[in-house]
């Protein structure tokens, strides 16, 4: 008599992987960040080869949907997808049906009809990526939603910090400028604290959100607080917020004098970062921006491999051992 066996968990066909998105740093655990940084490092070595293209995502479709102007984010996502051999489609709001007043939901449904594997979206309003995730079957990557989150920027910054300083844990990072309107500040603060770094937010009183300490950081208006930071991370000041009448700060001149990052305010060896695009002479003195302690170009380079890692990770089912990512190069 053959033995009757009850089918156990181990014998069932594997459940289809949960559809994953990258919408907020808050959705990530420390091990997720470690995995993404490791995959990015693997991809970085592939960039030194003569033929830079990898076949990892061949036949996959990545749609870039940009409702805000962007140079570095949109170009690096597009190049990241191409380097992984995915098909790409880039849609910008000017000249598209978004321009004709089509709702985000309808645009998402239209693009969803092409069955894209990933939709990368940048949108001026908080929660737009969530809406696209609900309206389509694609994996959604948030490339910036209003003042909420910009998770791939935070990841590329972590990548840069680890590459330049050898570690993240235990570092002290001062983030300086218009925290209130900055998705970069929000996602980076969460990412740094997740990885064991400490963060101090520094800026004019009206540009530090009330109760911002809930992000797990300190906040102060005193620029001297940057003195003992390993890294000074300078946020972009948007000029319209500096105009007379906005009254977040009395004037551009006053901002630059009180919070501008000048050579006098940084000490040798203190690293300086900026998500770009910079307003030289406003939030950052050109002498600081061009100094060898500035990591700004490294950040841009890190953007490509980090975004490659994000696309690769979302489209391969679940957590992937680093060795598998390495094997891709050989394929």
């Amino acid at each position: 008599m053959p033995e009757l066996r009850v089918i156990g968990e181990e014998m069932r066909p594997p459940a289809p992987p949960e559809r994953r998105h990258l919408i907020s740093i808050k959705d990530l655990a420390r091990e997720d960040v470690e995995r993404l940084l490791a995959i990015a490092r693997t991809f970085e070595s592939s960039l030194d080869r003569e033929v830079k293209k990898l076949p990892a995502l061949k036949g996959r479709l990545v749609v870039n949907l940009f409702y805000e102007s962007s140079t570095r984010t949109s170009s690096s996502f597009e190049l990241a997808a191409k380097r992984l051999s995915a098909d790409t489609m880039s849609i910008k709001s000017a000249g598209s049906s978004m321009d004709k007043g089509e709702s985000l939901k309808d645009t998402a449904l239209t693009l969803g009809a092409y069955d894209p594997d990933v939709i990368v979206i940048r949108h001026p309003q908080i929660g737009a990526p969530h809406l696209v995730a609900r309206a389509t079957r694609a994996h959604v990557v948030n490339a910036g939603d209003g003042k909420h989150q910009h998770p791939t920027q935070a990841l590329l910054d972590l990548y840069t910090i680890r590459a330049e300083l050898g570690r993240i844990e235990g570092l002290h990072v001062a983030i300086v400028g218009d925290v209130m309107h900055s998705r970069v500040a929000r996602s980076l603060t969460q990412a740094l604290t997740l990885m064991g770094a400490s963060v101090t937010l520094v800026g004019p009183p009206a540009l530090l959100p009330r109760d911002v300490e809930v992000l797990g950081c300190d906040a102060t208006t005193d620029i001297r607080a940057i003195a003992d930071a390993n890294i000074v991370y300078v946020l972009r000041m948007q000029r319209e917020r500096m105009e007379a009448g906005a009254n977040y700060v009395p004037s551009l001149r006053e901002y630059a004098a009180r919070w501008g990052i000048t050579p006098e305010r940084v000490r040798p060896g203190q690293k300086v970062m900026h998500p770009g695009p910079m307003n030289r002479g406003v939030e950052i003195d050109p002498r600081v921006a061009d100094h060898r302690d500035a990591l700004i170009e490294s950040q841009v380079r890190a953007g490509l491999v980090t975004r490659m890692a994000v696309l690769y990770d979302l489209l391969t089912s679940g957590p992937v051992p680093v060795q598998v990512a390495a094997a891709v190069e050989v394929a």
Partner: protein
Amino acid sequence: MLFWKNGSRDSLTLEGRVIDPTEGIDACLKLTIENGVIARIEPGGDARYTIAPAFVDPHVHLRTPGREDEETLVSGTAAAAAGGYCAILAMPNTDPVVDSAATLGSLVEAARAEAEIPTGFLAAITKGQGGAELTEMAELADAGAAGFTDDGRPVVSAGLMRRALQYGGFAGRRIALHCEEPTLSRGGHMHEGAVSAELGFGGYPSVGESVMVERDLALARYEDQPLHLLHLSAAQSVAALRAALDAGVEATAEVTPHHLCLTDEAVRSLDANVKMNPPLRAREDRLALLDALKDGTIGAIATDHAPHARHEKEVPFEAAPFGVTGLETAFAALYTNLVQTGLLDLDTLLERMSAGPARVYRLERPRVATGAPANLVVLDLDMAWRVEEDGFRSRSVNSWLLGQTLKGKVRMTVAAGKVVHS
């Protein structure tokens, strides 16, 4: 001041646990209704159902005229009947605004032809709700206005606010105020606090409401005129109201089910159905509102039923309009979230949904008494039900309770002697 279809008056018998806190009734009784009037009250029946004075909602947006795709007199009053209401008051922020006797007259006429339950109308304080010129309040009062409000907008000018209190007093109607200092609330999509700091939303701080509450109470005190505060949301507003009441100001106030049940934590869902004005506030604000409701500082629960078209809410949070529906879920939401959790007793809830709001605008109080017109709600407190889109009589489905299971169902509503829902 209330207008509805001049329909039949019903005769029926109701049995159950009858609770009328104002009349001091809490007993198993048999109510005999003859020709729309409570003819006899006798001992009898069991506690299977709970019978109480039907509810009064002092704050409803019927969206008519102008946005009949969102709500009409028919759908809005049917929704109210299903929620246990025997009377509602509609806000004047329609298109056109209810700011003239002609517009009000056409609404009154429509209500007489179409309204399922008694419906009253508040008229605007200022023409077009523009905040510049007073409406002809005396003529509007004669034409049936139940009160005056620029709801949806504050009266920004303190000087005009003072004139409105003076003239409203002359017209014999209460001024109801949406308290919001626009230079503080501008750009705000939610309460300013820890959650807005994390999510990145522009914040509408609680002080943006309370400074206006304090100003308006000071003006009411100076002019010795009554006033009503709409949909309070902030602890500091409650504190200001308490102080004014102690000083003898004739002030009343209302609070919504969503402000009593939720806090700004709910906004983490980024669901446009938790976007309202005033916004959901912090835990301490919610608790202050609850305390004020318990001790009577806030005497009325108002739904601020604000229907919105589906496509207007299916957008990112910041692009969505403010407001949620509430008529069909108010009792069950409050019973489930406040009474069942021990935060509020049933008697107080029933009083604040019926006699309390009636008192604000001096409407006839729904009551259980021999010879009184039958305005009754029959409740099944044990029944659990799921809030679903296709269950609404309202034309709109922008409810913060979608998908939730609630306890306590309205089984029958008798309004002005007629069974309007069963």
